[in-house]
């Protein structure tokens, strides 16, 4: 059975800290891994990774994929209160007709 596991489930840090969120997966015919940020409403797209070892970066956020060890990390440096959200990891697997398999998310709380 395909599965995506995120850790930790929740995390509390202070502004300025650096955090690392983890996502491991076991899927058939991996195609891509995606990260989403969910605040109060709809998840919003952050990154899509398809190749190992290539870092995707956007401002203070970055992500990298390890296809050999079947995991990805999402790093956030110099955290701000606006980074407080649930971060979702999802994997697109072959044969899934376009479906994404989501992890349960990591709830990040950034304290002032």
């Amino acid at each position, binding site marked *: 059975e395909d599965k995506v596991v995120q850790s930790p489930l929740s995390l509390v840090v202070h502004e300025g800290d650096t955090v690392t969120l983890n996502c491991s997966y076991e899927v058939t015919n991996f*195609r*891509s891994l*995606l990260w989403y940020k969910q605040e109060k409403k*709809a*998840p919003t797209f952050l990154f899509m990774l398809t190749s190992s070892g290539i870092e995707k970066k956007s401002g203070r956020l970055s992500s990298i994929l390890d296809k050999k060890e079947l995991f990805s990390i999402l790093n956030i440096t110099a955290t701000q209160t606006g980074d407080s959200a649930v971060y979702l990891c999802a994997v697109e697997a072959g044969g899934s007709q*376009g*479906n994404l398999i989501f992890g*349960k998310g990591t709830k990040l709380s950034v304290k002032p």
Partner: protein
Amino acid sequence: DAGITQSPRHKVTETGTPVTLRCHQTENHRYMYWYRQDPGHGLRLIHYSYGVKDTDKGEVSDGYSVSRSKTEDFLLTLESATSSQTSVYFCAISDGNYRGSSNEKLFFGSGTQLSVL
């Protein structure tokens, strides 16, 4: 932001009543999805559509049906609502190609909070 509108935004209903949630898109994307999100479970796929009148079941399809008569509209129906269907329902769309997209990026609607009493 992707043009996705879900309606209603909130609904309270009683057990045993039928409920229909609507998703409308203005992006002309081929794929549309219905997910539910519950604490401890994350987002789970209910049904999806890969074209007009082309739909398929997802992970948690029991108790739900869908219809897509037009590209822009995807309806989710609970034929006889139960308390276990209390959840937040998200519609999503994608411009991925059928059979093997490597550019799968879902764009989500704002969700419908459904409470079944």
